[in-house]
């Protein structure tokens, strides 16, 4: 594998964003390299969701520039697998797990009812990879939190994304499941760049190689450079720094 270090695939350059004049993100300058595993940490209201929406091209920065694989966020969408929080899904919608995964292969030219055989095969092999193949014909809302998370990861993977973006993947799952999900992500990290957003410091430290502390401003830390310090220290120092910086 070629070493793509110092060849960042996501670049945020002096990005500002505000809602109705209220600044949410300021001066965000981040570089993320190929095959990084980054945790974006921050308290509620720190601008984590806004950052995701900027990366997905749902919002446009007020100032600054975002470049993903050298493209604008909207043009880079096909290279990104997005895993939203499962709690946002309508639990009354009758749909099988396998159909949720296959759905992500649709394009504007997907007419009539059936999927290609290859799509179904790929979907099943992804469920197998994530060890949830027995759930293929179960209803999404009957699953546990951890299982739902895996389904959404499988859905994101079916397009072979270069970047995987996860919004609080371990929110409301128990500690064992949390570790399982991080193990799965670590496995995927071998050929995918991963960004995940979380507000709990917990396990994440032993899996990621970079931490981005976010609270309106952002500061990036490499885990390798910060030996001897626990993630919690980094995080609390960083949030003190950020609080100071923001005059909070």
């Amino acid at each position, binding site marked *: 594998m070629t070493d793509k270090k110092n060849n960042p695939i996501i670049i945020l350059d002096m990005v500002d964003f505000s809602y109705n004049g209220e600044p949410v993100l300021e001066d965000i300058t981040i570089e993320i390299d190929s095959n990084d595993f980054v945790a974006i940490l921050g308290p509620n209201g720190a601008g984590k969701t806004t950052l995701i929406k900027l990366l*997905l091209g*749902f919002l446009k920065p007020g100032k600054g520039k975002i470049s993903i694989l050298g493209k604008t966020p909207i043009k880079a*969408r*096909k290279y*990104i697998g*997005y895993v*939203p929080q499962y709690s946002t*899904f*309508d639990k*009354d*919608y*009758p*749909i*099988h797990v396998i*159909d*949720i995964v296959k*759905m*992500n292969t*649709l*394009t*504007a030219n*997907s*007419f*009539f*009812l059936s*999927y290609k055989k290859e799509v179904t095969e790929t979907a099943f092999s992804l469920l197998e990879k994530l060890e949830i193949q027995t759930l293929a014909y179960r*209803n999404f809302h009957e699953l546990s939190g951890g299982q739902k998370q895996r389904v959404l990861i499988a*859905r994101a993977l079916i*397009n072979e994304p270069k970047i995987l973006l996860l919004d609080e993947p371990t929110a409301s799952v128990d500690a064992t499941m949390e570790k399982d999900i991080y193990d799965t992500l670590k496995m995927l990290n071998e050929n995918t760049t991963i960004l995940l957003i979380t507000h709990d410091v917990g396990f994440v430290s032993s899996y990621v190689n970079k931490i981005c502390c976010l609270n309106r401003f952002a500061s990036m830390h490499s885990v390798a450079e910060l030996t001897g310090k626990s993630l919690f220290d980094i995080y609390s120092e960083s949030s003190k720094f950020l609080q100071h910086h923001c005059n909070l």
Partner: protein
Amino acid sequence: MIMAELFSSIATYTFLQNAIIAAVLASIVCGITGTFVVVKKITFISGGIAHAVLGGVGIAFYLSMPPIIGAFIFAILAAITIGLVKLKANQHENTVISALWAMGMAIGVIFMYLTPGYSTDLLSYLFGNILMVSSTNLYILAGLNVFIILIVLVFYRQFVAITYDEEQARLRGLPVNFLYILLLCIIALTIVVLIQIVGIILVIALLSLPAAIAGLYTKTLHAMMFSAIGLGMVFTLSGIAISFSLNIPTGATIIIICGLVFLIAINISRFIYKKN
């Protein structure tokens, strides 16, 4: 005894035969479209489209055109307008929809007032009169049925994608806005069909209740559609039979049956849910 009388009446009277065909046609589109309305939770938007239709009916009466043409035009206009409001305006969308809802009805009332000698037709559009469906209207209903089924077949997977997870559909590059407005137009056409059966005031119940009941026990969207079609047929046909036997209004009878079954079904499902 009553059943025997009913069957001999069906054999004798064309209007009863027409009513039964109309009920079956309505149940089919109602099950398909109603399922999308229920899972996407857009009953309020559908109500807006349905009530705006009265404006078209009023203008059609005034111009001595067939009312179904006016209903058709206003339903589509309302669907597109409400769709654009929903997509563009993030705030006050419910207020805007309520305004269109009421303005459609107000236009209808004014034009009906201006139409010389208007009478029972207004009531039959407000509350439906399945026993007065003409053979011409049956052809129109059949045509609308074919069109609605065809569009849903062609765009089925894309409709599922935008109703299940609109954000992801947008990320995948599906034409979400186009599909959303197309879906609203399909709802509008279905409403035109259903108004023949139960009228503008009661149409939302017929559109949403069979699908809502089906949603309580089905695990896939297509199963929900087929169940809703079956339930719709049972409700409309038994409504025709009961109203004919008791000599009471058919549309209202159908809606009372729908409503009662829905209330019973939702309580049973809660009971089962609690037990598990």
